[in-house]
């Protein structure tokens, strides 16, 4: 009967052993242990023959039967079933053997050999099933372990993916924030640019004011005095009529007519100056219209000169307008081109004045300040274009500086005297009109401002505006155009010495 104990111990032990994939059910841990211990105790008692043989048989049988019963009754112990299948033949044979030996002792002897052989097979069956079972279990276990590992790997990947997603979200948020900040900065810069452009306009208007005052006083002088003198002439005419000298009366009437024409002429002149001033200060009225560039150049030459004269009593310079009489009207925004001209002319007067100051301070003679504004028609790629030059006979712009003068905020004037925006804005205005603004130093015959009175050390500066008569570039609503790429005056040669 020891066999039953051993089978019980084996199965119980098998069930109490946890593996990677099998966990002993908690409620069965103790019962299984007690079953094992009691089987061991009984086995020991039996070995030393302390118990009655019959009792012993009943105990061992009920123990193994109870074991088999609970394994089949409770699904959580179904792991033990293959073990039961393995050992069941041995148990049944043993039981059979015992029963035959007890009830049929006569036939037992003739059956014994068969029973022994069956027993051997049953044992082989039990052991091989056990081995196969174990091997299967192990293979299964390895598979399970593998799948567990895969699952863990998958979990780790998912976790990493989630973490990455969070990171990506964070980065996206940071970038969006940065982009918004940049956008805001850009907007602020744009508004600052507009303000600067406006400030520049106002500054140049300030420069103009004195010139405008002078330019208005002169026509007003004529309007007032011509009307006054006409009044006197009318009295005289009446006197002559009364005297009967009709010829003289007629002559006076002719004079009065001339005077009235003069009054109208100078009234219009003052009107044009005021209108020009208003146009100059206006912010967003960029209307292109056919414009007489010669008249514009002449007007701003005078305004600039008188403006500077009014501001600086020591200022003086000679100026000359050499304008092509047949220059067609150009389709431009007059106040914008006016600003460019004013800027260039102011710069030229400033330069010759500085040069004259230096001569005076050094006690030298022989410098006659000169500014020339000239217009002509040139052919550029087969198309007629207007060329306006503003030339002076001052010291000229060094080559190193020439490439920078169209950059915003670049100025050679002392702090506070220049905004550094004039030429930059001028450049943009000319570009928006589809033209070119170029700068060069040219001593001698190339620069019309340089004459025999100019010292040879003076190179003089020439600014050249090339404007198409019809603007092919679409003009935006305001002149605050996006700053154009500054090109060096590489195309200057194209425009030089090319009169029509």
């Amino acid at each position: 009967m020891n066999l039953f104990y051993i089978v019980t111990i084996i199965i119980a032990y098998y069930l109490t052993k946890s593996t990677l994939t099998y966990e002993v059910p908690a409620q069965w841990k103790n019962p299984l242990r007690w079953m094992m211990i009691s089987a061991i105790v009984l086995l020991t008692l039996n070995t030393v023959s302390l118990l009655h043989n019959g009792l012993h048989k009943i105990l061992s049988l009920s123990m193994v039967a109870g074991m088999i019963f609970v394994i089949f009754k409770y699904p959580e112990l179904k792991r033990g079933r293959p073990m039961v299948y393995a050992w069941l033949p041995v148990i049944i044979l043993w039981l059979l053997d015992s029963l035959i030996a007890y009830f049929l002792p006569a036939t037992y002897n003739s059956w014994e050999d068969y029973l022994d052989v069956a027993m051997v097979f049953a044992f082989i069956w039990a052991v091989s099933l056990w081995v196969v079972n174990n091997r299967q279990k192990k293979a299964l276990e390895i598979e399970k372990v593998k799948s567990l590992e895969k699952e863990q790997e998958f979990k780790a990947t998912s976790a990493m993916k989630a973490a990455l997603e969070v990171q990506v979200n964070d980065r996206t948020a940071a970038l969006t924030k940065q982009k918004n900040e940049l956008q805001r900065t850009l907007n602020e810069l744009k508004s600052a640019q507009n303000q600067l452009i406006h400030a520049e306009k106002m500054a140049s208007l300030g420069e103009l004011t004195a010139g405008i005052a002078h330019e208005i006083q002169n026509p007003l002088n004529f309007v007032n005095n011509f009307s006054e003198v006409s009044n006197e002439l009318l009295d005289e005419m009446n006197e002559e009529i009364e005297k009967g000298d009709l010829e003289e009366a007629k002559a006076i009437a002719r004079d009065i007519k001339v005077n009235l024409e003069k009054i109208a002429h100078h009234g219009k002149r003052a009107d044009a100056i005021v209108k020009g001033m208003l146009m100059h200060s206006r912010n967003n009225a960029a209307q292109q219209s056919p414009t007489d560039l010669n008249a514009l150049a002449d007007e701003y030459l005078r305004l600039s000169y008188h403006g500077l004269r009014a501001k600086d009593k020591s200022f003086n310079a000679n100026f000359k307008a050499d304008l092509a009489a047949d220059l067609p009207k150009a389709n431009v925004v007059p106040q914008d081109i006016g600003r460019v001209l004013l800027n260039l002319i102011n710069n030229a007067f400033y330069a010759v004045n500085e040069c004259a100051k230096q001569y005076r301070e050094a006690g030298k003679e022989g410098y006659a300040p000169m500014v020339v504004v000239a217009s002509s028609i040139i052919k550029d790629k087969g198309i007629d274009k207007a060329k306006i030059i503003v030339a002076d006979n001052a010291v000229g712009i060094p080559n190193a500086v020439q490439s920078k003068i169209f950059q915003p905020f670049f100025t050679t004037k002392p702090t506070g005297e220049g905004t550094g925006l004039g030429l930059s804005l001028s450049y943009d205005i000319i570009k928006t009109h589809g033209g070119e603004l170029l700068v060069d130093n040219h001593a001698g015959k190339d620069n019309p401002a340089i004459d025999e009175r100019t010292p040879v050390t003076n190179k003089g500066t020439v600014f050249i505006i090339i404007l198409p008569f019809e603007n092919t570039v679409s003009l935006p609503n305001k002149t605050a155009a996006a700053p154009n790429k500054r090109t060096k005056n590489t195309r200057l040669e194209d425009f030089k010495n090319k009169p029509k």
Partner: protein
Amino acid sequence: MKILIVDDEKDVEILFRQKFRKEMKNDKLQLVFAFSGEEALEILGDTNPPSVMYMFSDINMPGMTGLELLSKVKHRFPDLKVSMISAYGDSENHEKAMNSGAQGFFTKPIDFESLKQEINSLL
């Protein structure tokens, strides 16, 4: 009496000729015009005393200014009477003109009443 008027505005000639038509008619006055400082110096010539008795000059002219002309003329003909006419009635111009020996200083628009008084005082 010969009077020289210097101004870069050409219409000044017509204005003066009409304003002084009576004086010119009865040959009391003779008007000469120059449109720049350089031209004025040419007209005055080199003979001293010059044929011109009185010179009225604008200050604000391209090239030689009226003030430069004043000092040159006063240097060459100390006895020639010169008065300035300017759209700038500020004290700085006024002072400079007076210091350089100007007889008077008239502002634009010209008040011909006072100008006539000035001339009549010489006639």
